[in-house]
């Protein structure tokens, strides 16, 4: 094998390779370091070995992929096993993750090994040149530009110029129209909820989300938090999720003298206030209610509402207070709503009245 080794051995580093700055300059460009051959460059056996290693990695990857498919078939979906540092895990998930991980890793490792041992590793300097064109060329281009401008009459024909600018400015609008296509505006959908049929003559009962039963005023004690939906909205209804996303209420009871907002106190019943549970920022369900401060917090972007003060926004991106439902009790003392929210629930949108 040694007969061709000397041919592959490069010459000792050529000092003129790369610009070497003047003597005595502390920041002199040292030029490129000497190129050192790798073992695989000079030893055919080493190269063959590297080749085998790379293929081995690729083969392991293939096996791992087969293992992936096999484990998908073999492992039952609900089997839980104990694996030491991780704990109780699903055997299927573990096997899938492990085999896919190995398959991908081996392809990567093989590629890297290939590049490092077998592909050419000669350093190639590429000179950097100023990107500026020379003066002559520049003068020529400017000349051509001026001629072109003069010939087009762009500066002279004002109408032409203005209409061109106008058309260019309007083109992006088509993009806006396309974006508008992303969805219909909510129109009246958020303005009407499951409570909108309620009138003083025909009140709708507030139904407890936990028990699915109407509640009496005395059931709501100070410091408690209760979620309610309109009577008649059943959980197995086809559009339950769509409806509850607008109808959901949270009920709190605040000592009437602690309620700072008169209108809010009147909408409630003896301190029981019924607020929409839907955040007015982008519509997350909020109900992180702090019973001592009467703050309700939205988990999505931390909008904070003061429920004792008409659900005023005291922090965060929400634009307006939570809508409040007017409630009272019927003859038997059950809590009922006598009207819809006085403004649309949920996030702001352009056509929103206020």
């Amino acid at each position, binding site marked *: 094998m040694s007969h061709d080794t000397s041919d592959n*051995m490069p010459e000792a580093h050529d000092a003129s390779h790369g610009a070497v700055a003047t003597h005595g300059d502390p920041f002199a460009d040292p030029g490129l370091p000497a190129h*050192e*051959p*790798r*073992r*695989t*460059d*000079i*030893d055919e056996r080493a190269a063959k070995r590297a080749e085998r290693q790379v293929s081995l990695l690729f083969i392991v990857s293939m096996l791992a992929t087969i293992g992936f498919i096999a484990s998908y078939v073999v492992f039952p979906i609900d089997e*839980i096993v104990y*694996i030491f540092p*991780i*704990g*109780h*895990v*699903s055997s299927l*998930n*573990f096997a899938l*993750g492990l085999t896919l991980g190995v398959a991908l890793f081996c392809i990567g490792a093989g590629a*890297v090994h290939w590049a*490092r*041992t077998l592909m050419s*590793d000669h350093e190639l300097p590429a000179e950097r040149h100023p990107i500026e064109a020379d003066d002559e060329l520049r003068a020529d281009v400017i000349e051509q530009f001026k001629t072109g401008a003069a010939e087009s009459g762009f500066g002279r024909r004002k109408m032409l110029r203005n209409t061109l600018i106008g058309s260019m400015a309007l083109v992006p609008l088509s993009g806006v129209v396309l974006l508008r296509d992303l969805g219909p505006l909510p129109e009246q959908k958020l303005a009407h909820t499951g409570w909108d049929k309620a009138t003083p003559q025909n009140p709708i009962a507030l139904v*407890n*989300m*936990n*028990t699915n039963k109407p*509640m*009496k005023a*005395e*059931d*709501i*004690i100070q*410091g*408690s*938090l*209760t*979620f309610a939906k309109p009577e008649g909205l059943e959980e197995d209804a086809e559009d339950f999720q769509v409806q509850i996303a607008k109808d959901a209420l949270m009920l*709190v009871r605040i000592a009437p003298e602690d309620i700072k907002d008169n209108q809010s106190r009147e909408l409630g019943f003896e301190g029981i206030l019924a607020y929409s549970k839907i955040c007015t920022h982008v519509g997350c*369900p*909020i*109900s*992180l*209610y*702090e*019973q*001592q*401060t009467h*703050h309700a*917090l939205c*988990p999505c972007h931390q909008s*904070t509402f003061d429920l004792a003060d008409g659900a005023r926004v005291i*922090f965060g991106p929400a634009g307006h207070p939570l809508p409040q439902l007017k409630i009272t009790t019927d003859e038997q003392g059950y809590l009922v709503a006598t009207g819809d929210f006085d403004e649309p629930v949920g996030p702001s949108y352009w056509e929103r009245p206020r």
Partner: protein
Amino acid sequence: MKKLSARRRHPLAALVVLLLALAATGGLYAAFAPAEKAQADTSAQSLAIDEGKKLFAVGCSSCHGLNGQGSSDGPSLVGVGSAAVDFQVGTGRMPAQQPGAQVPRKKVIYSQTEIDQLAAFVASLGPGPVVPKEEAYTPSTDPAVAGEEISKGGELFRTNCAQCHNFAGQGGALTNGKYAPSLEGVDPKHIYEAMQTGPQNMPSFPDTTMPEEQKRQIVAFVRHTTNDEPNPGGLTLGSLGPVTEGLFGWIFGLGLLIVVAIWVAAHTTKAKKS
């Protein structure tokens, strides 16, 4: 008399006088002290209340007032009931270490007997939620019923609790330094009592809006999720969701990739020229 007054200056005279005075006071007290013992009601309940009152005077009255009427440093305890005392003292939250946004859970310093006595005293101040009986919060042992309880409890938990305590009961942040604590390892009784009484900023879930049975289901679910539920993917990273997972991905995932990239670029196998 001369002799006596002559000894007035004796070094031990002061001591003798002191002893005489002490003996006189002791004797007078024995003669006139009210015969308290003989008159006290000896029923177990009022004994507990008495003991509780003493403990209260020492441990709690500086904030809640001698009769639990409250002060500028602590709320009135009239009507909070024994469940609140059992929860607050039983989880070490009370006596509070220092005022602040949140009173954290810490080492319990009272024995259960003492807690019961304190609770009896506070309960005597006004009616309120009572400490639940064991069967109220003990999940069923029948596997079929238990499974049903857990799944119902899960639904209730997601409606009522998950917004603050996180879907896996790991707790979460509230406003201004307050937080909803993790439910991991919390005694079922204390979970139940917290729902009953609404400690600190947690709203309460009284039996009128969340019946006893539903509370038991929630306890069953919380115990199951925080204790027994296996984690199919391994490494929960605190079950906190995107925050920890993202952090892990960035730091360990990307970090590892960077390390590998540096290693790949920095080392090239060079042959020794020989």
